[in-house]
């Protein structure tokens, strides 16, 4: 586990808002030379703290007006191997996120669709036919906000 100082936290705060900021600009913003900023970014990458980049798009502008979170409970617990369920559900193109969770449900899925009718098609044809699927609860996403997290 990596310990961070204030400069590392500054780098993470800036890059988690805009991952395209280069070492030169990072250095200027934080009072570091470009090579020093570059070395710190490199170190954060090597420690696995900076783990790639996420591209956020206006899904509605691309024709995907509906995002739904599904809570899925498996019906025949223990009879269908979790790996089978996970393999099939991960292969559905409309399913962006698959999380195995502990609680009221067994899995959380994020599903994108063009509209409610398209979502119904995905739900009926792809989700309800998954191996071992039991009850499903749907909540339509209205807004989402990512926070910087505990970067003090």
């Amino acid at each position, binding site marked *: 586990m990596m310990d961070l100082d204030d400069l590392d936290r500054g780098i993470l705060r800036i890059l988690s808002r805009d991952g395209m900021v280069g070492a030169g600009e990072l250095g200027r913003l934080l009072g570091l030379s470009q090579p020093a900023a570059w070395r710190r970014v490199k170190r954060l990458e090597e420690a696995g703290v900076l783990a790639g980049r996420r591209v956020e*798009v206006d899904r509605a502008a691309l024709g995907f007006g509906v995002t739904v979170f599904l809570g899925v409970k498996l019906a025949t617990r223990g009879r269908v191997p979790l790996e089978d369920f996970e393999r099939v559900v991960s292969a559905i193109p409309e399913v962006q996120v698959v999380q195995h969770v502990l*609680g009221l449900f067994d899995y959380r899925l994020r599903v*994108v669709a063009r509209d409610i009718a398209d979502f119904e098609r995905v739900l009926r044809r792809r989700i309800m036919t998954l191996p071992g699927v039991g009850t499903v609860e749907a909540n339509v996403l209205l807004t989402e906000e990512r926070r910087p997290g505990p970067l003090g």
Partner: protein
Amino acid sequence: MLLDEADRRILRHYLAEPALERAVLAERAGVTPATLWRRLERMREGGVIKAEAAVIDWRALGYGVEVSLRFTLDKTNPRAFDEFIAAAREVPEVVTIETFLGRVDVRLTVIARDMGQYQEIYRRRILTLPHIAELEALMLIATIKDAEGLPI
């Protein structure tokens, strides 16, 4: 903003693998690097690409616990949503805030170093948030898939 075939090809490959070298991305999308640069710039300006942010792996920083907290709010108070969300933004360990149409009103993703710290955050910062009617927790066991890809 209107997107043509080339824009869609670029986005499909970019969303699937945001870390691709620009030259490789251009080749896969079947455009020249100059066209790629111009198209990406246009889609940023047009708001289709909203953000290209670095992903922070909180586990690499010692945050081993991630919990999805699902809230139903007391909607008899017209300010319930605004006041709840404003208060949730003040909790550093809250890394995402989502609002929904459905049985769940708001979902928070909360991270903690361990169960001891989680319990502390839960008791002091979460249960004290305003206008909570109901609350349930899903503890993350594993993320099987986390992609921004769209079937475009």
